[in-house]
């Protein structure tokens, strides 16, 4: 046969013959292309640039695409390296049959090309078929009109094509390097030798524990501040490395300890399990660590996604408790009479009704906080020490809260929008006030104890005289006038409410002394659009992580199935019954397979505080909700894990059981 035909044919055969390993590889590759193509289609689509309020979504989708690129490449390379290792024997055979290395390189080229073509074809076809649907899903999630047209984007196609060309190009190079590095003898032999146990086991173990410990403590003590994202990345890297070392050294140490204890080791159910696991410690540990890390990533992504979804209402309420907030500087403000008329008039024409109206006057003080002492803001003070105080008079407070509280001259109520103030006295400049009560909730703003970053203090003072006196003491270069604030809640269509607030803003701009008008309706839409994109990204990333997890699990089972097959074959000859083989397998799997799940759940618990703080940056402060979501996700994930485990372990059983048919086949030949 012509060599030109033979080599591609051999490659095709190679793929077909290794169906159990190549089929999932191709499926995962197709799905990766699909997701990448969908994301880049959305990012490169003009509609995303023209639709109102889609800019947050666009930025998030771009970030998502970049992350996707970062995650998929190592994943594709990792799975490929696994596949090529499995085929050592086959390649060795080819080389003995007279295929030289150049030919094998050509064969590898054909193989990679075939896989690349299949993966691209499936991914793009499904991408084209579903990208419109998924785009509509995204628009729906971000609360935009869903009648937008969405066509094929050549840019997206080329981006996908080039990215995966590069990924599979790397695979090809790695495969060729492997072909050239190994001699036929190596290729034929296959690995028999056990994994060397890690050198300096205790150092690895201890450093693993230290890394995990630092990572955990960063996560547990994380506060909502400007360093949260940096800390998050740091904690994640520490835990990833720590997990690898932990599995490597921890598992080896545990097994060696078990082996040393002859009463445990020389029991028939443990004997085979322990020695088998020690034998392939290195490979086992790294795939277990990877399974654990991908499990953690899946759980955390799902947890965040679910929390954002279920917590949207509470986020919106925290960020924008009112549909509109109108702020005037009292120095030039002409009074409410004309404004009130205008508000009603515009409401009528915009077809909305004002359901709530709250107004109050407040004094802003720029201070530096040390404990319960507030002084005039020192330009040298750190950002964390600077605090903004808002002073409100008791009259305004009582009117808004519909209460009849009483305050002495030297008494105040205090409300922190973040962590509780927690002192019985407050020292403002030269004056000391007794805190009559620390307020928990008020109608005019929202409090969250976890909100330690953008927190402010509202201080209710007995009367305007106290307010004046404090203003004079804390006088700063700007904003010394009191602000008059009107807060509105509306009833009506969302679009009408939005245009109403806009028209109010337009009118107010013509008035002297306007500070600003906050459009809560529009702001919520921005938040919804952000959340929607986060949900969209979260759903896809959860699936991608779960896919990586299942694939690694599956490949691990296959590798170990083939490794164990010969061993169980021998053991049966030496007198191990079928039931004993089965029991041993089950035990081995139980011990090994659920450890990543347990560690992943521990990681989630350890990282919970940090996850909650990250969600705080989105103004989601409902810790109870996050915990509930965490429990649901942990439960669901455990089910998913068990399910994918049972599927993949069936493959393992099938491979191990093949030994019997092999034995029978040998007899037939004899």
């Amino acid at each position, binding site marked *: 046969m012509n060599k030109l035909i033979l080599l591609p044919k051999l490659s095709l055969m190679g793929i077909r013959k290794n169906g159990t390993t190549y089929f999932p590889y191709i499926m995962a590759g197709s799905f990766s292309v699909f997701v990448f193509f969908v994301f880049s289609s959305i990012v490169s689509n003009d509609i995303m640039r023209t639709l109102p309020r889609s800019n947050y979504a666009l930025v998030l989708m771009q970030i998502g695409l970049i992350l996707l690129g970062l995650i998929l490449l190592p994943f594709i390379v990792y799975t490929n390296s696994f596949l090529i290792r499995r085929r050592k024997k086959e390649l060795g055979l080819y080389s003995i049959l007279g295929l030289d290395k150049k030919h094998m390189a050509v064969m590898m080229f054909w193989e990679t090309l075939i896989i690349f073509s299949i993966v691209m074809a499936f991914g793009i076809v499904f991408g084209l078929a579903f990208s419109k649907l998924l785009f509509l899903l995204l628009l729906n999630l971000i609360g935009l009109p869903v009648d937008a047209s969405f066509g094929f984007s050549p840019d997206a196609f080329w981006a996908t094509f080039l990215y995966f060309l590069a990924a599979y190009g790397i695979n090809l190079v790695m495969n060729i390097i492997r072909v050239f590095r190994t001699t036929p003898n190596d290729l034929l032999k296959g690995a028999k*030798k*056990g994994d060397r146990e890690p050198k300096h086991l205790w150092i690895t173990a201890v450093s693993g524990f230290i890394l995990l410990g630092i990572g955990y403590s960063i996560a547990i003590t994380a506060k909502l501040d400007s360093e949260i994202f940096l800390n998050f990345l740091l904690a994640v890297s520490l835990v990833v490395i720590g997990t690898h070392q932990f599995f490597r050294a921890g598992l080896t140490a545990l097994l060696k300890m078990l082996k040393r204890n002859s009463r445990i080791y020389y029991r*028939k159910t443990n004997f085979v399990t322990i020695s088998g696991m020690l034998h392939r410690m290195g490979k086992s540990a790294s795939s277990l660590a990877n399974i654990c890390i991908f499990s953690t990533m899946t759980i955390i992504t799902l947890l965040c996604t679910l929390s954002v979804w279920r917590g949207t209402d509470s986020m919106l309420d925290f960020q924008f408790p009112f549909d509109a907030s109108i702020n005037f500087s009292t120095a030039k403000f002409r009074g409410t009479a004309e404004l009130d008329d205008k508000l009603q008039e515009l409401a009528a024409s915009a077809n909305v009704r004002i359901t709530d109206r709250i107004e109050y006057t407040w004094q802003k003080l720029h201070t530096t906080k040390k404990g319960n002492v507030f002084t005039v803001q020192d330009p040298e003070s750190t950002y964390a020490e600077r605090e903004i105080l808002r002073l409100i008079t008791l009259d305004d407070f009582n009117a808004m809260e519909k209460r009849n509280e009483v305050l002495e001259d030297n008494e105040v109520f205090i409300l922190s929008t973040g962590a509780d103030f927690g002192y019985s006295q407050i020292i403002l400049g030269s004056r000391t006030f007794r805190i009559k009560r620390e307020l928990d909730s008020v109608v005019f703003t929202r409090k969250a104890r976890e909100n330690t970053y953008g927190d402010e203090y509202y201080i209710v003072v007995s009367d305007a005289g106290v307010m004046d006196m404090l203003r004079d003491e804390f006088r700063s270069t700007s904003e010394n006038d009191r602000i008059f604030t009107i807060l509105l809640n509306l009833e009506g269509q969302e679009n009408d409410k939005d245009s109403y607030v806009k028209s109010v803003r337009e009118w107010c701009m013509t008035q002297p002394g306007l500070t600003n008008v906050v459009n809560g309706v529009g702001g919520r839409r921005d938040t919804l659009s952000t959340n929607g994109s986060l949900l969209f990204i979260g759903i896809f990333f959860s699936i991608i992580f779960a896919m990586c997890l299942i694939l690694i699990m599956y490949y691990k089972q296959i590798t170990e199935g083939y490794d164990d097959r010969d061993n169980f074959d021998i*053991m049966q000859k030496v007198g191990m*019954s079928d039931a*004993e083989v089965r029991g041993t397998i089950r035990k081995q799997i139980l011990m090994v397979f659920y450890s990543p799940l347990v560690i992943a759940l521990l990681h989630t618990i350890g990282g919970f505080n940090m996850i909650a703080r990250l969600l705080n940056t989105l103004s989601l402060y409902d810790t109870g909700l996050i915990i509930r979501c965490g429990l649901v996700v942990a439960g669901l994930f455990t089910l998913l894990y068990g399910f994918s485990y049972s599927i993949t372990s069936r493959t393992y059983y099938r491979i191990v059981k093949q030994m019997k048919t092999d034995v029978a086949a040998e*007899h037939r030949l*004899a």
Partner: protein
Amino acid sequence: MKEREERKVNRTMALLEVSNVKKVYGTRLGGNKVHALNGVTFSVEQGEYVAIMGESGAGKTTLLNILATIDRPTGGRVLLEGRDLSTIPQREVAAFRRDNLGFVFQDFNLLDTFTIQDNIFLPLVLAGKPLDEMKRRLEPLARKLGIEDILQKYPYEVSGGERQRAATARALITNPKIVLADEPTGALDSKAASRLLKLFAEINREGQTILMVTHSINAASHAGRVLFIKDGCVFHQIYRGNASNEEMYAMITDALTVMQTGGVKNE
């Protein structure tokens, strides 16, 4: 020798009785039937050392697999100490094999996951024996087989001869009624092979019954009796009597020549 003969006389029943064993492999469609064994009959007495010879495809391995309870005959009976092997329920077969039979394979079949010592312990661990008993049994055995120094090594760290001696130790440690050896010298160099054969002879002198399948004349010449199998039947057998290994070697060579030339004539 005398002792053994006396024991033989006292026994009315042979240790292993193979009577008219047949094995037919049918193709799945029921068309061509392959007769691997065509009614093999022989018996092995306690303390005997029997070699079974035959060309490739003569049915040696099929026979050994049947004796090893790995395979079942389609006809005839195999009795070990009077017990019909085919009456052993499937779930007890493994335990039966472990308690009564010892195996030595051509390719050693040692597990790379275990040290040599643990490989030898394997059947005892499976039988649930305590560690001190395992150690007690191993000690004299390891000394006899000359593997004391490699007990803590892994199979891939030692030579072929050492591996086969370790496998022999694994076969002997359960005190089996019979050791079944399948081409035990097949993967060994001549020096390692002759050392192993000397060991087998020594073990046999101490009373261990051995049944060995081989097509090495040298290996067979160490046995007390050689059975020749051809076309699924016992074709011929040679008793050592008082012959030396060299005389035995010559007798086997003659028998093989007769067998092969006779075969040609018949065809």
